[in-house]
């Protein structure tokens, strides 16, 4: 039985933590939060690229480090913990994973080395209106290699160089690669719950689009992509949730009320014990998702749904109860509690909310029970 990361993977994780503690204190996160013109930390992005992290799971043949998804998972956890305000998820979990999943040899050669080198920022443009991603949502259309339609919200769509777009062609959904610097693309930055991450509305009017993967496989590919991203995002969520718990714990020990530390009251103890339990369950499910992702196991759809639901709920719980533990000071702009509160929402929604993932999970269980 070996259900844990290896010593090398743990070493990588510690290195990542040390690096991010130095380069990504919350003051860096706040710099993005407080400047409406800024939607990511460009210096940090370059430094992260310099570490080689963007190419962690990209094969060496395409300029990556050729490690694996387990290594990418431990880095994801540390990025989540640090609240890193960079387009890592959009570029790596979505664009690079989409290319690895469905890209032609030429597409992989064109984009993966650039991603690994930090020369390209990606994004995933799927939904167009409120509600879960379904076929009926998607009105964007490709005709004669030209894309028209509107996508929103697109995380990192305001800074991305290339988008993976879900659109109709001949009545069927397919994925497309669209360069956002070209003609026929208009972008508008949107205000969101988490201004430490950039989000845009993309309007396409005849932008050049190149199909990614089989025609008509768009929705299935999008779902496969979301499953992979769900596992990686779960690690970011677990990282953030653990840090929120540490913050709550620290405050509960140092803050006195009625002559004693508030952490000595059972109301606070039980709250924090509940956070701990949810975080540990989420961590275990994320590990299982990592195993399924790395080995390509048939358990991936169920494992990803489980990891997604557990991590989304654990992070939300940890973030809101950390803020509550802080009392009034927790509700101020200057205290970091709201950074976690915002990020928990951002990560909890970006690949689809927990409610929809629960339905996916039960459908998987039904399939398994019927088998």
């Amino acid at each position, binding site marked *: 039985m070996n259900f*844990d990361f290896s010593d090398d993977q743990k070493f990588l994780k510690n290195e990542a933590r040390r690096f991010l503690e130095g380069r990504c204190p919350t003051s860096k996160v706040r710099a993005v939060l407080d400047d409406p013109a800024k939607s990511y930390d460009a210096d940090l992005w370059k430094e992260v690229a310099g570490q080689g992290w963007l190419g962690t799971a990209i094969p060496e043949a395409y300029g990556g480090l050729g490690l694996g998804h387990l290594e990418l998972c431990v880095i994801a956890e540390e990025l989540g913990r640090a609240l890193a305000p960079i387009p890592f998820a959009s570029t790596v979990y979505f664009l690079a994973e989409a290319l690895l999943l469905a890209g032609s040899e030429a597409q992989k050669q064109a984009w993966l080395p650039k991603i690994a080198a930090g020369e390209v920022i990606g994004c995933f443009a799927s939904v167009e209106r409120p509600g879960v991603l379904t076929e009926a949502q998607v009105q964007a259309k490709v005709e004669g290699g030209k894309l028209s339609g509107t996508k929103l919200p697109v995380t990192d769509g305001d800074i991305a160089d290339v988008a993976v777009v879900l659109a109709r062609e001949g009545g069927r959904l397919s994925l497309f690669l669209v360069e956002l610097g070209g003609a026929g693309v208009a972008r508008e930055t949107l205000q969101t719950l988490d201004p430490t991450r950039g989000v845009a509305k993309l309007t396409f009017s005849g932008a050049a689009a190149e199909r990614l993967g089989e025609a008509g496989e768009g929705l299935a590919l999008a779902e496969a992509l979301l499953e992979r991203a769900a596992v990686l995002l779960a690690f970011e969520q677990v990282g953030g949730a653990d840090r929120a718990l540490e913050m709550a*714990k620290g405050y509960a020990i140092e803050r006195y009320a009625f002559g004693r530390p508030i952490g*000595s009251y059972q109301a606070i*103890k039980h709250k924090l014990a509940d956070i701990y339990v949810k975080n*540990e369950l989420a961590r275990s499910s994320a590990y299982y998702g990592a195993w399924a992702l790395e080995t390509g196991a048939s358990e991936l759809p169920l494992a990803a749904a489980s990891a997604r639901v557990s991590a989304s709920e654990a992070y939300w719980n940890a973030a809101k109860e950390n803020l509550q533990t802080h009392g009034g000071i927790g509700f101020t702009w200057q205290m970091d509690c709201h950074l976690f509160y915002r990020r928990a929402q951002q990560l909890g929604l970006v690949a689809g909310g927990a409610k929809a993932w629960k339905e996916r999970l039960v459908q998987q269980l039904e399939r398994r029970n019927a088998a």
Partner: protein
Amino acid sequence: MDFNDTPEEAAYRAKARSWLEANAPKRQGRDEEDPAGLKDAKAWQLKKAAAGYSCITWPKEWGGVGGANWQAQVFAQEESNYPTPGNPFQIGLGMCVPTIMTSGNEADKQRFVGPAMRGEEIWCQLFSEPSGGSDVAAARTRAVRAPDGSGDWIINGQKVWTSGAQFSDFGILVTRTDPDVPKHKGLTMFWVDMHDAAIDVRPIHQMSGASGFNEVYFTDLRVKDSQRVGAVGDGWRVSLVTLMNERNAIGGGASYHRQVMDLASSIATLAGSGIKDAALREKVADWYVQAEGLRLTRLRTQTALSRGQTPGPEASIGKVVTAPLMQDVANTAVELEDQFGIIVDPALAPLSAMFQATLMSAPGMRIAGGTDEILKNIIAERVLGLPQDVRVDKDVAFKDIPTGR
């Protein structure tokens, strides 16, 4: 990450499997409450001890195998595939005898360890009292020196929630020897002979209808000073060893999401088939995520054992997750049956009234071996390092502590 055995684990598993295949019973016998079942349990324990599958991790000097934790775990996994008799030895081998081994005198170790390991003698743990469940250190059962100068002790009082007292040969007993000092300092531990006429064991009729536990009354029970386990006044420290073992021993269960899904498919709601009910589907997902998270957390613990490491604090979350989960599953399933849910007759109620039975036993799960609240305190204080609650019973003589009656 790899869910397969290491070569060493695989070899041990194969050996255990072939021994079990040759020796384990193939059909379910009666449980240990039944005299015949108890006899079967003892025979099975003796067989395991002779083959080196009892007390695998105990040191060789006490007749153990001197094996690793992972070996004990692998054997337990394999044994669980057979309908082996009930295990009335768990409390003795998991808690009482380790306490004797840690804190007892040399003669007691020589006397008790072997017979317990071979299943010849059964032990129970006499800690909880009517006035102290969660607060074990509030024990009132009194032990005083006999007035005849023999050094013997005379014990009077009552214990409660004692599992297996009705068929136990010995018990470890926490007593109050000094009510004039703060409560944790005035406790002393003894072992007692459960066959003594001064001990009266009475079954407790639980709300579920079953009787798995007992009240145990002591009326002028006389014990030798040599039956003392640890020093006079050191009973709290000695019992902490026992309690630590208890909390590690009580784990979790299954989530029954599969049974609920099957049940829901066969039942009509106003939204159509029960399985189409959105609220139910969301609950099924919640249960699955928790049960699966717990199963995987155990695999993390097992990995630490397999690597020869001490498991992290995540090993402590089992019961606090499982017990409320089971209660919620049972309540939801009964509600799904609607008016029919009130019926407990196994011949009439779906799934032989499994969920009705779970509903009635779940409160016990949330209390036994540490209530939800106590377990959360332990996580908060020992894992997260939060400060202890303000204690009004600290530095106060035990006899002066308010009791509320």
